[in-house]
């Protein structure tokens, strides 16, 4: 069997597995966020936190909950790293410098998991397991909570209340993420991922002497890193490291974990707004983009254009033998079309066009299927823009799911769309204009520019993968990427929740013959087109200077 056919079969197997999980998981999540009853463990948590899980919140209160919880998270993670040198269970590792500690704290709370540190030599057990892995759970649960709040904005009439943030947060962790993570972690250990607290120990070598390994709770962190679309590796090599991703099966399983919640949330959405077909229309758009990008990526990587790859006889630089080009292409598209950013192969060594596909995937706003929660709300914002454009074409006030999209709503949607491009292009321009940031580049020319464009694209979109030739552990990059990650995560959430509040206050408009049928394939096409046009217009000039120039020269 040729590697190309094996790659396609892996894609088909993945589609089948996601299809099997779609209904049960999507329905389960809808029940979790709609249930009236609390589990006993949850009631205990609410008592400890001192909140009433049944108190309905309007959007400002919901937003304050999100921001307060996240602010505390940044501060806690910052202090944990700054105090690492004095904490027991830290392998004697030194405390992290202030700029890097800020960057890492912002990164993990913002569900980005950009890493300017080397995991195995910098972060001890306490920071990895008690700090970073915890944010992998809760930052994902925050994303899902905000998405559910927006869905309630569409579903509820006329209420103005969006649910209770604390209840949504806790339920996301207790009823969705933890159970799935326990099962997934054991699957990964069965494949060979390590899970111990052995610390640093010596192991014999074939040629004599010993090598030093850093053990740790790797499998338990790996699984939530994928499931929560986080992406921060225990080791520097991330999911290319054999202890994180030991076999071809674990590789496909990790890609499945990345995609399963974001795709299934469209079912949850359909259930909660009372029309599964509306969910399928959104799912269709996500799936078309994902499959299209994967096909393009396989094509360019198997073609392997570029002087060094042609001399080598294939684009295997930065890729592992056990995954091959097919398994690497599959992972790399899944990680950049979601907000994951884990890598099983090094993006900087993909072909010029391959790097362009990764960049464009993030620049679409990570909506196909996107991060847990953030993918769904990002796509729903684009759906609002799409019905607005359709409304302009026929001269009719646009509406979506029975809610009018008026001036107020479209303003919030427009603000949402403008945040990340402003951060990406502004910071990239600043870094290119200043003298010193360019010193961090490993590659020169078009690819060097791509390294910096990639860094801010990844940060502001909360992805976290990198063209890792860029030495990002400088005060400039630690600070500016840290700011881009925080603003790129929380400003859009402000607009999403404001929009949700505004929608929730409305009375539903009855559907008439003139209503745009948003559950039909026509709308799926309109939505995909809107996405590609809006993103293309925004980023084409920057992409032309980087990956397109590199790809066309090869």
């Amino acid at each position, binding site marked *: 069997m040729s590697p190309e056919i094996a790659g396609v079969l892996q894609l088909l197997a993945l589609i089948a597995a996601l299809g099997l999980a779609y209904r049960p998981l999507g329905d389960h999540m809808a029940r979790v966020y709609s249930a009236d009853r609390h589990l006993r463990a949850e009631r205990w948590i609410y008592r400890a936190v001192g909140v009433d899980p049944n108190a309905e919140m309007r959007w400002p209160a919901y937003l304050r909950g999100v921001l307060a919880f996240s602010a505390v998270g940044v501060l806690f993670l910052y202090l944990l790293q700054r105090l690492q040198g004095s904490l027991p269970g830290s392998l004697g590792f030194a405390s992290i410098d202030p700029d890097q500690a800020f960057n890492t704290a912002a990164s993990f709370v913002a569900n980005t998991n950009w890493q300017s540190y080397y995991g195995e030599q910098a972060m001890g057990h306490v920071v990895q397991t008690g700090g970073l892995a915890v944010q992998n759970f809760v930052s994902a649960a925050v994303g899902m909570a905000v998405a559910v709040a927006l869905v309630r904005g569409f579903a509820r009439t006329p209420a103005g209340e969006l649910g209770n943030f604390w209840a949504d947060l806790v339920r996301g962790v207790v009823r969705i993420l933890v159970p799935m993570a326990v099962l997934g972690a054991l699957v990964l250990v069965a494949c060979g991922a*390590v899970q111990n607290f052995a610390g640093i120990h010596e*192991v014999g070598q074939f040629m004599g002497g010993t090598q030093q390994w850093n053990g740790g709770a790797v499998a338990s962190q790996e699984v939530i890193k994928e499931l929560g679309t986080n992406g921060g590796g225990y080791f520097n*090599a991330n999911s290319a490291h*054999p202890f994180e991703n030991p076999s071809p099966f674990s590789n496909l399983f990790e890609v499945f974990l990345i995609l399963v919640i974001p795709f299934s949330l469209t079912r949850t959405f359909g259930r909660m707004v009372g029309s599964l077909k509306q969910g399928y229309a959104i799912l269709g758009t996500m799936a078309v983009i994902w499959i299209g990008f994967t096909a393009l990526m396989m094509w360019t990587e198997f073609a392997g254009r570029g002087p060094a790859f042609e001399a080598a006889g294939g684009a295997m630089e*930065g890729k592992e033998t056990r995954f091959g080009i*097919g398994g690497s292409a599959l992972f790399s598209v899944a990680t950049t079309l979601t907000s994951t950013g884990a890598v099983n192969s090094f993006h900087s060594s993909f072909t010029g066009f391959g790097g362009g596909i990764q960049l464009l995937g993030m620049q679409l706003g990570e909506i196909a299927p996107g991060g847990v929660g953030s993918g769904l709300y990002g796509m729903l914002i684009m759906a609002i823009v799409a019905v607005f454009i359709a409304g302009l074409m026929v001269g009719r006030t646009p509406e979506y799911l029975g809610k009018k999209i008026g001036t107020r709503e479209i303003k919030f949607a427009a603000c949402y769309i403008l945040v990340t491009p402003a951060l990406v292009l502004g910071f990239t321009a600043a870094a290119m204009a200043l003298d010193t940031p360019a010193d961090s580049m490993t590659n020169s020319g078009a690819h060097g520019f791509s390294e910096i464009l990639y860094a801010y694209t990844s940060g502001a979109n909360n992805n976290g993968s990198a063209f890792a030739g860029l030495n990002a552990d400088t005060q400039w990059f630690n600070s500016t990427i840290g700011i881009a990650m925080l603003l790129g995560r929380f400003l859009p959430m402000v607009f999403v929740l404001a929009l949700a509040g505004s929608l929730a206050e409305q009375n539903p408009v009855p559907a008439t013959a003139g209503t745009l049928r948003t559950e039909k394939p026509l709308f799926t096409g309109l939505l995909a087109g809107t996405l590609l046009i809006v993103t293309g217009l925004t980023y084409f000039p920057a992409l032309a200077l980087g990956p397109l120039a590199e790809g066309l020269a090869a």
Partner: protein
Amino acid sequence: MNNSVGNTARLLGAGLRALLVLTALCGVLYPLAVTGVAQTLFHDKANGSEITDSTGRVVGSRLIGQRYDLPLKEGQETPDPDLRWFQPRPSNGLGENSANTQYDLILSGATNRAGDNAELLQWVKEAKAAVVKDNSTADFKVNPSDVPADAVTSSGSGLDPHISPRYAELQVHRIADRNHLDVRQVRKLVDAHTEGRTLGFLGEPRVNVLQLNVALAELAAKSR
């Protein structure tokens, strides 16, 4: 004003308590429970899949690639490969720890060089020339176009434990020559250590270099 400061403080207090409770759940209970089950059910795998040679000495992990080099000679920066053993892929992106230097950790990593990077092109050309030279024996000449891509490129982790079956096959004549073995014997050894795609379509066919070299050491000792 005071009221809003008080509200903010109350909210932050709730946030902190929520974080601490969820840290106890996700950062303590969860990893301990997973570790407990993993250590019970999959003891070897959870501790790094170590393997031993025929004498029972631990020689490394099935999952972590190693170098098979001669001792560093004086004035040399990089050691020469020990051509008695099957050679792994290059690992130009691998590093040593730069922080917490009381340890001597392996720092996993890739070269991150682009396809048009001059240095990468140079590395690939040099590696290819070396593979051709090292593996050509008196009665077997390596054709440069037969060298597979994995033989001349560094992996993502720098710790790739595998090579492609083609690269293993390419080394068979050299290995037989250096260990005074029959080519057919060595080829049989490689075939026995070649893993196909999982379920026929997952990943790529591959050969585990450490396991192959352990078996080779046994074979060489037996026929001596």
